[in-house]
């Protein structure tokens, strides 16, 4: 187990592994997104309470889940980087931040577009919405902090600490609909109970959710490869790959 971990941690091996995985993951991601979108827009029935407007769920919920998932990945990698100084973990955290920020922006804006017709307001300072907005600021703060230092090691360390401190916001977002009386509805899908939405609506939602997750993984892996290539430009294995014309 530890040897496997150590091998993956080598930037060269990660570069190669990601190269092999990427086309497969991208293909599965594309299929899931296309089929999920089709089933969500055409096959899933109309909601008896919200009419057609509920279809926003197929982009809003996956984006909201991803906004938190990416942050947890970022915080986890930051911890690994701080404890073991593992370069790869820092690179994964670095390239994840803008993608996570984009998903957070999507969760907020599609939520707003859903809230207007259903709640009658674009925005409300309730616990769920406010904590999600704080998440967006955490992402932006993380990226700003990283770019504020000239020294890469200092930047990486400071940003990692910020990511770790900010992780307390994640359970707050998750439980906000239970702890406080919010305008936002409680979760429709939980691990322990039967989901409160019908299977024909649930299937496309899960397809979109997995599709979004793969979309993040594909972009994260590809961006990590680019950063590795840039940082390792002077090493023998990169030079060799350039010579063989297979970057």
């Amino acid at each position, binding site marked *: 187990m530890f040897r496997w971990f150590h091998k993956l941690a080598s930037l060269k091996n990660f570069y190669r592994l990601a190269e092999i995985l990427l086309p497969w993951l991208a293909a599965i991601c594309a299929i899931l997104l296309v089929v999920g979108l089709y089933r969500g827009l055409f096959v899933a029935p109309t909601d008896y309470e919200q009419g057609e407007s509920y279809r926003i769920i197929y982009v809003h919920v996956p984006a909201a889940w991803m906004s938190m998932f990416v942050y947890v990945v970022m915080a986890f990698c930051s911890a690994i980087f701080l404890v073991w100084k593992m370069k790869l973990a820092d690179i994964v955290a670095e390239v994840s931040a803008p993608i996570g920020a984009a998903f957070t922006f999507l969760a907020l804006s*599609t939520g707003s577009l859903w809230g207007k017709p259903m709640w009658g307001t674009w925005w409300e300072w309730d616990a769920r919405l406010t904590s999600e907005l704080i998440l967006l600021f955490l992402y932006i703060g993380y990226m700003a902090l990283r770019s504020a230092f000239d020294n890469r090691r200092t930047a990486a360390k400071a940003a990692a600490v910020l990511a770790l401190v900010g992780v307390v916001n994640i359970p707050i977002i998750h439980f906000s609909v239970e702890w406080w009386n919010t305008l936002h509805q409680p979760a429709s899908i939980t691990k322990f109970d039967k989901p409160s939405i019908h299977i024909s609506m649930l299937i496309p939602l899960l397809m979109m959710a997995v599709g979004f997750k793969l979309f993040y993984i594909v972009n994260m892996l590809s961006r990590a490869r680019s950063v590795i290539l840039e940082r390792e430009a002077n090493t023998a294995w990169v030079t060799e790959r350039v010579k063989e014309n297979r970057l």
Partner: protein
Amino acid sequence: MKEFFAMGGYAFYVWTSFGLTFMVMAIIALGTRLQRRRVVAAVTRRAQTESKPDAREPFRE
């Protein structure tokens, strides 16, 4: 078909949400591609300059 695009009167909210999501994800994917292209070009250029020593100092006599 017309009924489908009308989304039961919620066309603006539904299509703006889906359109926005598509746009943001397209920007992410484009960013990934551009970064990759930029880095590959930089690394290749660097390798070429290093293999031709006179290219580094063009004015040497």
